[in-house]
């Protein structure tokens, strides 16, 4: 890595003692000796293992659940269904007043994605829990499922999630989060070229080497300690408190040493049910995702569809940009309404465009609920924006890097979401990339600065 101290030297003092120093990480000696304690590096006497019975169907009504054979299985201590969960219908962003509650801890009457948790089995060993789980009988009536976002948004599509009533999240602004800036149609009308393109992604897994999980131990005083690899301690504690209808002072969360997260461990999935298991049995409970569960059951990064329509002038100026973004939330909201909204705030990218129209939708389909991941709400949008930029440059016969200089935002430029640009550095990054990659651009671009024009 090379630090280029010549840029922005006037804005920075480099006289610090500890900051800017490549100090060795205090946790590394534990990592290299195998002594770092992750949540699962604990073993409590009498610890039970929790295994989920999961839906084999993408969308189905549950006619009945029969746990009688499973209960008799040797080693089984308890079996939990929806009726055992005090506040079974929840949504995690309720903590910041983003509702409605739309997801079940354990399925109640219906499953909305293949892999949805239906019954929790608590047993003396993992093996006994697996065997008993195989003996739980669930009678399903399979329902039509919808996987394609366009299909889901059509009238008459199967309704994925009745708590929403339609297959998209309803913002206070309506069916989508909107950004309106300038007059996009006038911009298109005056443009030399129009280019409309569609970009698509599919779900992406965080794939941390340590799977999601927790171990819950009763403290013996009606308090429960939850050793967890959550990325957000109080967020998880507070949601568990709501789901379990237990005061927060009964819950004690210990974590902070995590084997990789990347956004995959903020969904509050394993902790509430494990605490409930510990509460009902009085014994420590371990609930750790298998790798298969981590890959297909834990929330992935959402699939997105992004439609970008641009008006561009022959001289390289983008004069109008309309973006319609669709986030495939899967069957439940989790963090997706936030991500789609974050996307609205991110478009049209780091460029100054006078006329902008953004609509971002959070769409429900019968697939694994998606959620946050590294670059949430932005990563796929950036893919779409920056491929579009390449196409626009080629459309008008301009060098793709120079084309970005023409449109790059600078301090003081008004963004589409009506915040003035501060602290911009896109131009300098591109100048340095031009040098590093031996990708020359015209001298006037190398002379540009992110500082406000005329400043």
């Amino acid at each position, binding site marked *: *890595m090379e630090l280029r101290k010549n840029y922005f030297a006037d804005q920075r003092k480099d006289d*610090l003692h500890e900051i800017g120093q490549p100090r060795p990480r205090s946790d590394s000696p534990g990592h290299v000796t195998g002594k770092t304690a992750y949540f699962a590096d604990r073993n409590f006497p009498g610890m039970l293992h929790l295994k989920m019975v999961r839906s084999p169907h993408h969308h189905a009504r549950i006619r009945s659940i029969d746990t009688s054979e499973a209960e008799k299985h040797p080693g089984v201590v308890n079996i939990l269904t929806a009726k055992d969960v005090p506040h079974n219908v929840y949504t995690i962003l309720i903590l910041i007043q983003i509702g409605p509650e739309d997801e079940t801890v354990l399925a109640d009457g219906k499953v909305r994605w293949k892999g949805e948790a239906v019954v929790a089995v608590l047993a003396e060993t993992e093996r006994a829990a697996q065997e008993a789980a195989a003996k739980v009988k669930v009678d399903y009536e399979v329902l039509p499922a919808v996987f394609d976002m366009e299909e889901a948004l059509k009238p008459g599509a199967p309704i994925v999630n009745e708590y929403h009533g339609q297959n998209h999240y309803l913002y206070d602004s309506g069916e989508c989060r909107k*950004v309106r800036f300038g007059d996009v149609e006038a911009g298109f009308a005056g443009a030399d070229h129009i280019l409309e393109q569609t970009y698509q992604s599919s779900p992406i897994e965080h794939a941390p080497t340590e799977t999601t999980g927790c171990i819950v131990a009763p403290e013996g005083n009606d308090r429960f300690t939850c050793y967890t690899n959550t990325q957000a301690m109080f967020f998880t504690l507070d949601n568990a408190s709501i789901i379990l209808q237990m005061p927060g002072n009964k819950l004690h969360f210990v974590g902070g040493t995590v084997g990789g997260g990347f956004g995959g461990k903020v969904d509050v999935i394993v902790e509430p049910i494990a605490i409930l298991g510990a509460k009902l049995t009085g014994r420590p409970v371990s609930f750790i995702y298998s790798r298969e569960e981590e890959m297909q059951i834990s929330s992935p990064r959402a699939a997105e569809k992004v439609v970008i329509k641009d008006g561009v002038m022959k001289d390289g100026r983008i004069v109008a940009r309309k973006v319609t973004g669709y986030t495939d939330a899967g069957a439940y909201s989790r963090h997706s309404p936030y991500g789609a909204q974050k996307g609205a705030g991110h478009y049209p990218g780091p460029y100054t465009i006078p006329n902008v129209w953004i609509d971002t939708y959070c769409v429900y*389909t019968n*697939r694994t609920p998606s959620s946050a991941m590294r670059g949430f709400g932005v*990563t796929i949008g950036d893919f779409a924006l920056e491929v579009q930029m390449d196409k626009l440059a080629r459309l008008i016969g301009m060098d793709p890097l120079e084309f970005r200089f023409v449109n790059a935002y600078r301090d003081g430029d008004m963004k589409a979401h009506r915040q003035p640009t501060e602290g911009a550095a896109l131009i300098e990054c591109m100048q340095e990339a031009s040098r590093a990659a031996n*990708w020359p651009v015209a001298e006037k671009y190398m002379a540009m600065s992110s500082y406000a024009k005329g400043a």
Partner: protein
Amino acid sequence: MAIRRGRGVAAINYPTGMNLGGDPTQALVHSTPTGNFMVTLSSVDLGQGMKQIMAQICAETIGVPTDRVVVDTADTDTGPHCMGTFASRGTHRAGNAVIQAAKEARQVMLEVAAEELEVNASDLETDGQGNILVKGAPQKSISIFDVALSAHFKRGRSISGRGMFLIPRSYPEKETGAMKPSTCYAHACTVAEVEVDDETGEVTVLTVKNVFEIGRALNPKMVEQQLVGGSWMGISHALYETTEPYYPNRDHGGTDFNQYLMPGPGDLAETQIIVLERPSADGPFGAKGPGEMCANPQIPAVANAVFDAVGVRIDTLPITPERILRALKAQAPN
């Protein structure tokens, strides 16, 4: 068979934090009797090294070497609230809270030192090595070790501080979308160079040259860790990763590390990392959040490089050999 070469560029920015939800983190700092400092948090270290960075931030602020700071996190019985580790917020939000707490503790520390040295606290400075000196008269000094002992056993003072950093929630305006989604932005530009096998659609990323502007590299080696790993993940996203390879068809989702594809150690691009620092107005020592954005620009840069190489646009991620081959076959045969 033809191996065809191309290059592509992408430039991006990235918002720090989750302003649209409201974004608080708290921290507590106190000294031990011998002048070591405890930072108490409920923030989570995912492996990115938050504990180390918080220690360096506290040390810088108090004026002691980093190894005299211990970070205690994340226990909800002891650590004050943190929203969580996501949205590139950890260093920025928790770092600001630690600075505030450390400043308050430092002030008490200087007051105790002032009493011991019989000077005004405002006349004192730290040397970063664990000593407090009188400005302009450095021979008049006291060690932080002695100050802490005095505070605990002689003067009955608690060298401690509370820190709170809150970005109030921004509510998007319904019709215009006016909002403040971030307080500061990191930036990046990547140039990727690829080879594409036009008979199989296989892509080899030869080089990625990444320039990142991250506000301030609080620990350059740890920044490098993030950026190198992130650059790898960006390439991985571009060419390999999906839990639903035939999306929106739900079949054939991978269930293990053999089926869920990520570049192996034999697939690595030659990776260059260049870092610029334009300090953010509200970041701890100017830092922004580099953890997420470092994995973004490689994706479009690789996509654009593939086009440059073989003249087909793959607008669907991941850019698999199959998608490239289908597009090549769909091209006019001439």
